[in-house]
């Protein structure tokens, strides 16, 4: 009995430990969100969204240039990354059984692990240096390059989920293979693919490292694609490292806006998947 009791006790303790682990894991998330709200919410006002930066050391100004900059650069990244990434994902799901597919899948996984700063210096070498200028375009391409392998894998997974019976039915009705794939399979998986896109975009919107040597940053409000442009995470980084309390205040606010954007996209994506599952 003694041994049995000891074992039961161990079991209960370890169950408690795992509860503790989960709680400890979520704790930083709660603390960070709380801090962002606490320190950032007070600084979010109309000025924050409508004004750009003021001279060093002065008070006031906002993040309008950074917010719009992020929207533009991420938009560019989508233009570059979404078509290639999704197409690769469809390829892997539909034609990826053989060695070519295996190889590309492997490469996608490897590329997913490449540090984003390496992508950044790649984009600098191939876009900034030859063009002779820092640009939002280079930043967008760098982020797009990060999108491609992520989207390839998530799209593949979503397209794979489409039951074969659907494919077979379409083929039986006389559809050629390409039309089956495009019109039937992909359209069925569309919601899932979109979800994958949203999650990937949320991830890429928060990236700073690739923008350090490509988009560079800009204290003016700019929408020009072939010139430097501010971006939200970049601006938060610059301001966080500075000594001015004014900068710190705005960095917290910028971080709050960024996390709301990212979390909204992520949660929305999850909700779409859940709704789709319930209707399927």
């Amino acid at each position, binding site marked *: 009995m003694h041994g049995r009791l000891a074992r039961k006790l161990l079991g209960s303790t370890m169950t408690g430990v795992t509860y503790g682990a989960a709680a400890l894991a979520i704790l930083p998330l709660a603390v960070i969100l709380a801090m962002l709200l606490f320190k950032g919410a007070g600084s979010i006002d109309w000025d924050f969204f409508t004004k750009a930066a003021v001279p*060093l*050391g002065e008070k006031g100004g906002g993040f309008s240039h950074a917010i719009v900059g992020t929207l533009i650069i991420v938009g560019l990244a*989508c233009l570059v990354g979404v078509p290639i990434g999704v197409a690769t994902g469809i390829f892997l799901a539909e034609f990826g059984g053989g060695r070519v597919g295996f190889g590309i899948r492997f490469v996608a996984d490897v590329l997913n692990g490449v540090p984003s700063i390496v992508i950044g210096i790649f984009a600098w070498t191939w876009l900034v240096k030859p063009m002779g*200028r820092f640009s939002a375009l280079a930043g967008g391409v760098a982020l797009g390059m990060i999108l491609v392998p992520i989207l390839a894998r998530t799209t593949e997974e979503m397209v794979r989920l489409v039951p074969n019976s659907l494919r077979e039915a379409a083929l039986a009705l006389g559809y050629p293979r390409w039309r089956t794939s495009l019109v039937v399979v992909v359209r069925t998986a569309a919601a899932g693919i979109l979800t994958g896109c949203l999650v990937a975009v949320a991830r890429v919107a928060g990236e700073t490292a690739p923008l350090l040597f490509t988009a*560079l940053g800009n*204290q003016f409000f700019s929408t*020009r694609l072939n010139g*430097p442009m501010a971006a939200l995470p970049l601006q938060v980084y610059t301001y966080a490292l*500075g*000594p001015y309390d004014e900068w710190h205040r705005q960095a917290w606010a910028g971080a709050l806006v960024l996390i709301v954007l990212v979390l909204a996209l992520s949660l929305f994506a999850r909700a779409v998947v859940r709704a789709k599952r319930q209707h399927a």
Partner: protein
Amino acid sequence: MTNRMIGLFAVAAGALLTGSAAAQTVRLNGAGATFPNPIYSKWVLEYHTAHPDVEINYQAIGSGGGIRQYTDHTVDFGASDGPMTDAQIQAVNGNVFHLPTVLGSVVPTYNIPGVTAQLKFTGDVLAGIFLGQITKWNDSRITALNPGVSLPDQDIVVAHRSDGSGTTYIWTDYLSKVSSDWSQRVGKGTAVNWPVGLGGQGNPGVANIVKQTPGCIGYVELIYALQNQISYGLVQNAAGNFIQATLATTTNAAAGAVASLDPNTDFRISITNATGAQTYPIASFTWLLVPKEMTDMTKARALLEFVWWAVHDGERYTGELSYAPLPARVVQLEEQRLKAITVNGQAVLPRNYGGR
């Protein structure tokens, strides 16, 4: 929904691209020193208000970055307080003017809990601290200089620049002059092999580390210490006096060099450890790096008009930001350089520009 999204992207992209093609504004990109960033960012905005068709984007990435980007031709002008070396000038085939803009000073700034007094430092002591030889605030060498101050038994944390920096150049230039130990072991440059310390990005980064870390000492341009209310110390000059960095003492530092200025100078003058009773020893010019021969007339004109404005009208902003304005003789010679800049052999500014 996906179709519509693609459509929206296409329309937006098209609008952005055509929009940029139709713009009338002249846009210039510059990058470099954080040392003068407070006044450059002020100038850029004031100039833009007066001339809305000119937009100058200045990114303070450090003097090293300014020199690099200038050499790589990824910016229209650079900015640095560490002058380009002969080798670096060779790398751009000599196509660069160093145009001074303001005078500034680098101060030793510190954060010692309980100490609000202004400490006195000598070059030797500063070198000793930054070499890691003096490790406690109540070291006899520091207390000897500051008899009235009770310094705690606290470790000294050194903060320096992690990026390529003209401020570092000025600081190490001074230390190399006053300490042979430093000169041999570390030397001077925009980035050096620091014996000890934490690295911060830009003047703001170092100021932030000092502000956040008890017992910390760093070196920053004066305005960064003032704007962030961090204590900074007095430094002993060549004449033996402990001097505070002010408008007057910074201007005095340049006086000797300016008096003996060669009309054909390329302005790469070091004024650290200058002679004179009331000179601040760690002062320096800061320069804009501008090509002698440019390629785009519109941009060249806009840039040179801005620089002309900066060294004349712009100087009125120096006082409130604790920089010292350029001596008149320097401005005079600079006007000649500005007028000598050409595009395809043709001078950008007319001979009588500015009524001179």
